[in-house]
């Protein structure tokens, strides 16, 4: 037996997954210019990995929630810049900045926020429908 209530769980899981994604985008953008003295200490861009979750209690059910399976760090090597007057420059005068593409992060952020909006809309619509269902036979 299907019920509309499980739909709230599905959409809520998507909302929280997308907000984790927005959070990583925010920290990537915030650290886009963070300098480091050596390449190992430089900030690395974070990416989330989504995974769909089957409902354990109801394996044949229709709802499939989503969760964040993990946050991975980018393997791209930090860019070296020659800035001998920078306070964090090493002996050779280099500082290391993370290999973050701001444009890519902005696109990622737009995708996340559109998806978030779509899920909010789904919840709103199903809330209205549930309310109408509860009013059957009262007219």
């Amino acid at each position, binding site marked *: *037996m*299907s*019920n*509309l209530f*499980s*739909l709230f769980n*599905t*959409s809520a*899981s*998507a909302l929280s997954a*997308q907000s984790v*994604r927005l959070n990583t985008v925010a920290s990537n953008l915030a650290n886009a210019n963070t300098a480091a003295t050596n390449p190992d200490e430089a900030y690395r861009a974070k990416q989330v*990995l*989504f*995974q*769909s979750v089957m409902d354990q209690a109801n394996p*044949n*059910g*229709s*709802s*499939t*929630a*989503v969760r964040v399976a993990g946050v991975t760090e980018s393997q791209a090597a930090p860019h070296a810049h020659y800035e001998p007057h920078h306070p964090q420059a090493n002996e050779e005068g280099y500082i290391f900045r993370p290999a973050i593409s701001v444009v890519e992060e902005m696109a990622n952020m737009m*995708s*996340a926020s*559109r*998806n978030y909006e*779509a*899920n909010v*809309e*789904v919840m709103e*619509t*199903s809330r209205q*429908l549930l309310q*109408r*269902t509860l009013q*059957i*036979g009262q*007219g």
Partner: protein
Amino acid sequence: MSLSLDKAMGISPQAVNVRAQRMELLASNIANADTPNYKARDIDFRAVLESAAGGGNSLPMARSQAAHLDPNAGAMNGQVEALYRTPSQASLDGNTVDPQMERAAFAENAVQYQSSLEFLNRRVSGIREALRGDR
């Protein structure tokens, strides 16, 4: 003649049920729009409704022994078989959700759910009216 509420309601309760299940599937598709390897699912409403009405042009499998597979096993607990969508634009990460199409389908399904609900509601008021008799 005894009044059978089940018969009096007609097919509307099943229709509402299938609509609710389709709603769940479409909401899952929207929720998983960015999940790698997720395959979008949907149900064929017309086929489901035909089989619920007992009609259609299907030849149901006959069971002569208890060990035979029950073709109605899924339908018994109110679940309808979900089918996988054919992607219009295949994505590199194995995801077959088309967010625009899913949102359109969701909106369409919400309106259809409301109309099924309205039919059911009218049925209920009709029966109440009949039970009340003259006032």
